[in-house]
């Protein structure tokens, strides 16, 4: 499926939503793991999905639901612990799972979401739908046993799953070079008999293309694919860390921020298209700025959960509960 103008603009809109949402988060009293720098990878992948497809994400959880099309206000309200939050204030920054757009979990247990995504694919297969499931996980997470176990499970049962690695080069302070026997995570696919693809994660269009191929494969019943998007995190791992021993150079960061910004790269690609002009993009940006402002206001004006409701949502069928 090739992208129409409206798709391109939607892709741009979602990337801007992530960027501007995260910039707003930086101004709020919220501790978070930001997705700035990784918008191309996230949105490029999500644009290849249908609304009823599933994703799972990670502790770096803001970008994924936005990429999948979530409304911003409940996400922002969740960050502030409000009852209007997407998780009613129970989840918080590492867990912005919006089930209404197919987010089956944002796991703060590194590697924990990979089996869940595999299960969503399994479910689709058993129920006989043509939904697919895409699993976001980091380079660090790829060293959890769940990754290889799940790839194998998906391969054995030919599940409609896309394993999508956001390789941003680091797991907190640990570089891929110092934590991986070899640096190309996509090469692991071969050991499980599934295709492994490396893609430039800063180029949203390349990401979209690779993801789209994997989605088509999965939807056709041809099984899982591993995609490794080489990307970069522009900000610190999260904003409450006190890292005294530097693990990456300022030059490295500057290089990526200056030359490898996925929004700048995509903008250039869009503006090279005859059917898209600067005004299109500017008006989207302006809309998103308004949207994010509204989300912040909504969040700030929302109430906190009522302490009396502490036990709500623990059980579907509570029995003798609370004791």
């Amino acid at each position, binding site marked *: 499926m090739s992208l129409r103008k409206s798709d391109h603009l939607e892709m741009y809109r979602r990337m801007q939503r992530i960027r501007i949402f995260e910039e707003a988060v930086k101004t709020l009293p919220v501790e978070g793991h930001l997705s700035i720098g990784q918008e191309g990878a996230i949105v490029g992948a999500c644009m290849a999905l249908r609304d009823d497809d599933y994703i799972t994400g990670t502790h770096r959880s803001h970008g994924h639901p936005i990429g999948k099309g979530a409304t911003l206000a409940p996400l922002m309200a969740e960050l502030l612990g409000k009852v209007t939050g997407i998780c009613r204030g*129970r*989840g918080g920054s590492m867990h912005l*799972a919006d089930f209404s757009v197919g987010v089956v979990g944002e796991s703060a*247990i590194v590697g924990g979401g990979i089996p869940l995504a595999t299960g969503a694919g*399994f479910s689709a297969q*058993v*129920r006989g739908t043509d939904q697919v499931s895409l699993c976001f996980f980091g380079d660090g997470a790829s060293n959890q046993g769940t990754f290889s176990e799940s790839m194998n499970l998906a391969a054995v049962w030919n599940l409609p799953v896309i394993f999508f690695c956001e390789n941003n080069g680091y797991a907190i302070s640990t570089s891929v070079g110092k934590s991986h026997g070899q640096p190309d995570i996509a090469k692991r696919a071969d050991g499980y008999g599934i295709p492994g693809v490396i893609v430039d994660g800063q180029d949203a269009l390349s990401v979209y293309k690779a993801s789209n191929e994997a989605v088509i494969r999965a939807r056709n019943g041809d099984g899982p694919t591993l995609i490794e998007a080489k990307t970069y995190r522009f900000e610190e791992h999260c904003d409450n860390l006190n890292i005294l021993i530097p693990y990456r150079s300022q030059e490295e960061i500057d290089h990526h921020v200056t030359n490898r910004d996925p929004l700048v790269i995509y903008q250039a690609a869009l503006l090279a298209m005859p059917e898209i002009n600067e005004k299109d993009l500017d008006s989207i940006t302006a809309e998103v700025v308004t949207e994010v402002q509204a989300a912040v206001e909504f969040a700030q004006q929302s109430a906190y959960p009522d302490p009396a409701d502490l036990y709500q949502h623990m059980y*579907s069928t509570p029995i*003798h509960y609370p004791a």
Partner: protein
Amino acid sequence: MLDTINEPLIIAEPTSTQLSYMDAIVQAQKEEMLRDERVVMIGEDVSIYGGTELVRSFDENRVRNMPISENSFTGMAIGAAMTGLRPIVDLTIASFTYLAADQIINQASKLRYMTGGQIQVPIVFRAGMYYKIGNAAQHSDRPYPFFMSAPGLKIIVPSTAADMKGLLKSAVRDDDPVMIFEDCNLWAKKDLVSTDPDFLIPIGCADIKRPGSDVTIISIGACLPMVLAAAKTLQKQGISAEVVDPRTLVPLDKEVLIRSVAKTGRLVIVDNAHRTNSAASEIAAVIAEEAFESLRKPIQRVTTADVHIPFSPVLEKIVYPTAADVIGAVNKIQ
């Protein structure tokens, strides 16, 4: 679906038949799988360990054999539960539950709450406790206490074929994650079991297995036959023991337990788990807190010693609680 109190469950017994504990497991699963096509079964070597009948009755869509990857296939089932299926995960031997503890605790037990009720996780984890058979420490654990400390799970330990069938079926129909600990020492034990495909035993209800008036013996899981034998012997001594089986450990049916202790004033708790942080410990704590005024004597825990299960039969046979231990404990508090 919002939080609601469990619908009252219909408990009907049109006809009954003699069924082994093992057959009760198989039948419960088969009936539920026939009733609801969202129910699927996954596990290692599903064709063996009592699964043969299921493999013969359902295709690979419903009964799936898994590679040896406990944490991930458990997580896979959790993801499936979140997206429309109602999986039964057979973890086979209970000592392997530690491998899946991360997914069971960090995901299954937590996700409903953490998503503010957006997601529900209707799933059953089965774990078989294979002990007393010379399997040594890595295969002989009885780890239900381990999971009792994680909120969000329901935990059941059936002691008869009827309880197994009724509780396992309730577990499959429950919209929350339920762990069911089966006891291999009961596999062959037969019992009269209802043939009604809607026969259910509600989760969270204790059962008085033998009424009595002088002492309450709370018996957990497969301790039951031995405890009933001890109660018989005690009767001959003139001591009338009331034997109560909690059946569900989380949530605990405190009311029934407390009522029994209120009547007898004496409590012995029998548990095949290791003594420290056993289910017996939790029950003792509840009674010492909520029914202290009824207690006339110290609570007695009769449990497996805090030692790993040894291989050698001469050592293994002395680690588990026996009828003599139960009788001794009762006599100690007369």
